[in-house]
């Protein structure tokens, strides 16, 4: 499978190179859907220019990157385009390898379960065949590299590409089973933006499963491994934070980076829900609603972990999706990451209820974003409500997509344990509902 992957990477690099050389590159790097105050390349250049002028980049409110990334960009500022393309390539290859290993595990488990006769006899059509499992990793890499969202994000030189690369490497290390590397990449991802800390739970569950330690709060082996993993994660995070302190000599970056992400002072429009809500907020409710919105991102971790404790990779997908939808400054680059996982669940297609409507909504909204932005900002004939409405619709579409896949996954699991063709008491065909 190396040849198709190489061909795919070459095609992706060609598309990006062509767009970099065209006049669209300038246009795309200013689009608010593609860059946010957190990952705009213009702000990185501004921060480095401030550093050259002898002013700390964190003394103003224009630069919100972490100090280690300043160090990285200082060296690569002239090769930004190549770095973005390499980051995309790393993400795609990491996801490819991760999904390959995961599919092998899935197939092996399925084989053992079939031999042990654990599935009802009418469930054979739900089984995943080797043929479809063979092409899934390539589809994942294709979904990521050739997705218009990713291409736009790369051409804009948004630093979201590098964040995605770190998360993808974390997924790879977790699925391969290396606890230390997984903890290090998770610490890096958390250091970049706080939200990946919720991925601690699925990674922990997966590693426990891999080591055949049951997820039982009363067992000592569970706590032993949890403490080990937590110690590795917290230790790497402390080392990275300490390195950042020594790099610039002050703790200024903590309110500038993490305070900025959590308290949302900048109301630049983006594709998320936060900006207009806090632009129109009554002042005395502001703190309350900031807390509500931030808790909303972290809140689903525990319930999802309890429900999906036997399916940690799906849990990881759900968590990445929830972070991308509900984070404070989302961009299309974050969306591209969780959408890259969708081919892994392509066997759920028969149970998806809203997929046609959701895909229409997402396509239509993606097309309407630039139109309504132009009408508001340049033509002056629309106002902010138009853009806000499309934001709402886009987020509803994403939420429906993720919950649809969740429904389909749970339904398939139910059928695998209870049989595919269910009958009511009187023998007629039954309908399944959630009760």
């Amino acid at each position, binding site marked *: 499978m190396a040849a198709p992957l190489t061909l795919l990477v070459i095609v992706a690099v060609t598309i990006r190179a062509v767009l970099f050389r065209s006049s669209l590159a300038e246009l795309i790097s*200013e689009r*608010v859907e593609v860059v946010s105050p957190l990952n705009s390349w*213009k702000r990185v*250049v*501004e921060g*480095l*220019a*401030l550093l050259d*002028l002898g*002013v700390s980049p964190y*003394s*103003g*409110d*224009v630069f919100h990157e972490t100090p280690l990334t300043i160090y990285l960009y200082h060296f690569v500022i002239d090769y930004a385009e190549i770095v973005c393309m390499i980051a995309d390539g790393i993400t795609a290859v990491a996801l490819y390898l991760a999904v390959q290993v995961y599919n092998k595990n899935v197939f092996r488990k399925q084989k053992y379960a079939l031999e042990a006769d654990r599935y009802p006899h009418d469930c054979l059509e739900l089984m995943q065949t080797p043929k479809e499992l063979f092409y899934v990793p390539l589809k994942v890499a294709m979904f990521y590299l050739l997705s218009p969202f990713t291409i736009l994000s790369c051409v804009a030189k948004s630093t979201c590409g590098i964040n995605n690369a770190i998360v993808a490497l974390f997924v790879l290390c977790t699925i391969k089973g290396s606890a230390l590397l997984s903890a290090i990449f998770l610490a890096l991802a958390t250091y970049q933006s706080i939200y990946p800390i919720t991925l601690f739970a699925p990674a922990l569950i997966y590693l426990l499963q891999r080591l055949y330690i049951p997820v039982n709060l009363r067992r000592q082996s569970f706590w032993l491994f949890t403490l080990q993993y937590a110690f590795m994660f917290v230790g790497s995070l402390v080392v990275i934070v300490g390195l950042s302190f020594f790099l610039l000599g002050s703790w200024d970056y903590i309110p500038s980076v993490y305070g900025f992400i959590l308290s949302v*002072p*900048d*109301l*630049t*429009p983006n594709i998320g*829900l936060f900006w*207009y*809500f*806090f*632009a*129109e*907020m*009554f*002042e005395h409710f502001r703190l309350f609603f900031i807390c509500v*919105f931030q808790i*909303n991102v972290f809140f*689903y971790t525990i*319930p*999802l972990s309890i*429900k999906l404790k036997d399916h940690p990779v799906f849990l990881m997908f759900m968590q990445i999706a929830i972070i991308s939808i*509900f984070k404070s400054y989302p961009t299309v680059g974050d969306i591209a990451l969780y959408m890259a996982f969708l081919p892994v669940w392509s066997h759920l297609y028969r149970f998806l209820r809203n997929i046609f409507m959701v895909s229409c909504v997402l396509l239509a909204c993606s097309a309407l974003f630039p139109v309504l932005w132009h009408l*508001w*900002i*340049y033509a002056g004939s629309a*106002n*902010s*409500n138009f853009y*806000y409405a499309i934001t*709402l619709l886009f*987020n*509803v579409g994403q*939420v*429906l997509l993720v*919950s649809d896949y*969740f*429904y389909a996954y*749970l*339904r398939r699991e*139910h059928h695998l344990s*209870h049989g595919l063709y269910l009958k*009511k008491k009187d023998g007629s065909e039954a*309908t*399944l*509902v*959630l*009760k």
Partner: protein
Amino acid sequence: MPTLTLASARSPFRDEFAEELAIRPLHSGDIHASFQFRTVWGVDLLQATDPRFLRYAILPREIVCTENLTPWKKLLPCGSKAGLAVLLKSEKLFHSSYFSQAVHIRPVCQGMHCTVPSWEMRQTLNVVFDLYTSGQGKREWSMFKIKIYVDVTDSPQGELFELSPPTPLLSQAVVLGDRRTYSVYDLTDPGTFGKVRSLNLLVRWKADNGDMLRPLLHGERYVAGFGLQTGEIHTLIYNNHPYRAFPVLLLETVPWYLRLYIHTLTVTSKNRENKPSYIHYQPSKDRLRPHLLEMLVQLPPNSVTEVTVQFERALLKWTEYPPDPNHGFYVGSSVLSALVPSLVAMDTNITQEHPLFSSFFLCKEESSYFMRVYTEPLLVNLPTPDFSMPYNVICLTCTVVAVGYGSFYNLLTRTFQVEEPSQSLAKRLANVIRRWRGVPQL
């Protein structure tokens, strides 16, 4: 502070007041009138001033109104009841093409020894009267201790305008590097009045146009770009000196909601890049402090220097917009300060009597004078949210979050079950009765 011995053999210093009016007919037919008032107190008003700290504040939007003029007039010792201030009628003043009033307070030295600091307050009011809206100057006044200077440099033989009554008194002064000739009407001299107790000054124009000398340093500022997302501030600095280059200090304070990108700062003179010799930049903090940019730029002779910087417009919270949000936000002027080399040698003997308008800044150096120029304030539009929407936005956004929460809640707390059809109401009632009767149900 060292203590002063009161037993010194100097005369006690009294408070002083002086006022004068300088009239300059312009080539376009307008009249520029400059009222100068100077009050000096012989006491030390403020005990300690540390000259190292400079506080700078600017209020870019100020409506021109009598509420600004009245308290200013009250600062004069006789208010508006006597002296030149009688002429300051607000209806006439605010129907002019240009109006400017200022108050300057500073410590000054009296005499060469500077033993006692005294405080001087200068009030200046400059008005340019439009020829057609304010008519000819027919004024009647009577007062003492003032002088009226009429600038006749442009019309020495009377070819541009004619001044009546003519006066033999002529005085020369160097104002802003330019040697001007003035006809002086000294109202303390009874010979000016003649038999009547009033002076009727008449200026009659003869020619229509002419060429005015351009100032050696002036600046312009404007915003370029389109749309409500980004823009560029362009500052143009003109150096009209024919052969001398001089440095100018440019101070810009830009409010925080125009986010400046200092890496896009370019300074070009004569189509070539002109790197500033000194840049001090303090970036803004949202809702706390504005951007502060100070640069020392060398202006080549006879050139235009353009300073451009890109900015991005921020979306503010709905409560932070002023009552008319689509009018725009005012950005304060930038300040150009320079020691401009003079075309004419200046006389810096401070004991000699000078008109008030030329003695504000006295320099030691013979051939340059200090000038501070303010550019125009800018009016910048920011994107606005819809102000009628706070409740709607809260409801709609919380609805979307609730849709997400509801879907996840259902999938997390409920399990799949086979659906049993529910019986109709009639059958259920019948079953209740049957159970009570002990009979098998439907």
